[in-house]
């Protein structure tokens, strides 16, 4: 099941625009020439090994780290310089593995960040409720579980109704229900035009939930597109599961014999066929003569994880 990405309007200025961005620390090229445009209202995934440059790119977009060269704009404006305060009021950020203040309670934590961000304090209780911490607002953060801390961090990022959200490993430490709730919130935000850039090491989680994603390796953009586009780019084979009575397996093998580039493996209850993407319809056509002897067909796309490792192999 693939989500239909919303129509991306490239006529208006992109929410985030990265042009020829470089960040060099001496000989280390943490970000090495990245061009990227994220449209308004897009959920954009950023994936890569540790040290691939994701966090540095985040910090460059936030204006925390000046680019060695290149240009970065958020909402058409630079995040540094004279107007940086206005630009940053519209940004929400959740850093990776952030530890908030143990001695404050949940509500005090949000109040502190709301004051700094210039957001109304009245938003804070509603945000706690939105991330499922309504009952824990008066408890010290010291007593929070890892998942609760992460949710508090997310609530902090939502202060001031940001137009752009940058979330570094936001689901770290969340349980499955909380992950589901988290992505439901992201979709609500997307519906009102919020642009979201998200990183995760759990690729299965991003697979169904991002409109597009970029794979970063050694500071370079290795691939960019929707999950489906990356699958096509990776030329990875499909897996087709045929459910057959054992007696009908030889007939199926015979039917597929004329086709090139297939691998078929018989097993109890059917046949597994691995075929190139463009041979899918040919395989289905070749199986048509079997009629109802073919009891079921399932086609499996390669997972984002498979695609990721394949593309990284280069």
């Amino acid at each position, binding site marked *: 099941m693939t989500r239909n990405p919303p129509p991306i309007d490239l006529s208006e200025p992109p929410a985030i625009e990265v042009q020829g961005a470089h960040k060099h620390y001496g000989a280390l090229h943490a970000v090495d020439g990245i061009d990227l445009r994220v449209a308004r209202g897009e959920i954009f995934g950023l994936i890569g090994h540790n040290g691939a440059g994701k966090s540095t790119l985040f910090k460059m977009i936030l*204006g*925390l780290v000046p680019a060695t060269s290149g240009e970065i704009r958020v909402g058409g404006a630079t995040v540094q310089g004279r107007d940086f305060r206005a630009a940053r009021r519209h940004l929400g950020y959740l850093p990776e593995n952030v530890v908030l203040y143990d001695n404050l309670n949940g509500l005090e934590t949000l109040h502190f960040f709301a004051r*700094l961000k210039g957001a109304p304090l009245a938003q804070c209780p509603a945000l706690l409720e939105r991330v499922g911490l309504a009952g824990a607002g008066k408890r010290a953060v010291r007593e929070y579980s890892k998942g609760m801390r992460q949710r508090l961090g997310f609530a902090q990022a939502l202060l001031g109704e940001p137009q752009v959200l940058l979330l570094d490993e936001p689901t770290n430490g969340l349980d499955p229900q909380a992950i589901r709730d988290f992505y439901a919130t992201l979709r609500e935000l997307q519906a009102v035009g919020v642009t979201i850039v998200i990183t995760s090491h759990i690729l299965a989680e991003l697979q169904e939930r991002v409109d597009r994603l970029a794979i970063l390796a050694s500071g370079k953009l290795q691939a960019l597109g929707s999950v489906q586009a990356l699958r096509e780019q990776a030329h990875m084979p499909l897996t087709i599961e045929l459910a057959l009575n054992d007696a009908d397996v030889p007939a199926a093998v015979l039917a597929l014999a004329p086709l090139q580039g297939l691998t078929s493996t018989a097993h109890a209850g059917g046949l597994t066929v691995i075929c190139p993407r463009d041979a899918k319809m040919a395989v289905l056509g070749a199986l048509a003569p079997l009629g109802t002897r073919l009891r079921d067909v399932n086609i499996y796309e390669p997972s984002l994880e498979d695609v990721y490792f394949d593309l990284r192999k280069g």
Partner: protein
Amino acid sequence: MEFHQIFTIAGKEFRDRMRNRWVLAVALVFTVFSLAIAYFGGAQQGTVGFRSIEFTIASLVSLVIYLIPLIALLLGFDAIVGERERGSLDLLLSLPITRLELLLGKYLGLAAALTLSTLAGFGLVAVLLYQQFNWAGLFHYGGFMLSSVLLGLAFLSLAVLLSVLTHERTRASGLAIAAWFFFVLVFDLLLLGALVATGGSVGGEAVAYLLLLNPADVFRILNVFSLDDVRTLYGLTSIVPPALAKPWLMGAVMAGWIVLPLGLASWRFKP
């Protein structure tokens, strides 16, 4: 510069120190130590009991010169590096706040906590001893309290500088202790050693100016020269040129010791 950003940070730092009873604990330490020193300070001369304000201040100066730098350094070393290690520094800096505002907020909040505990601690002693003091005595004692606050602020400024320059808390705490050893224990020994080794022939006057490179010594000069009796007690008059024996000048040097490390910290502060 937006002052409400500075006050938001400062307010949090100050409230943290009130809430975890840091201010109370340090104030009590000051009170207990200074009462003990005021009472037993003359034991080496064979007497105990409260004596003149000058004796009390002279004894307190020797206590404060060890204690306040240590407390200020321990208070401040964590200011920035702690946020960095927690991962919250990037978050703070992603907000509409400049690095200078963050740094000043941290400094002012911690400075308020240190100032309050110093004034409360020594102020309580003044209240307890007010019968021994006349008005002139109270005035001098006020000067001593003020200079103690300045001493604390100078070492707090150094601590914040160390906190900005390091990337690990353990390293920052090590450097804070090393700074204490250097300024409080080693610096005077080195100067004295140089003076003795050269037989006092080289730059007797220069040595006095070198004392200005150490806020602890500035504090000593500030207190020693504000009181005639204390001056005779210390017998230091001979090495400090009269040009330096002006409280306002020493106060200005101390202010320099507060502003300069902070300025350096702001300059070197990178996310």
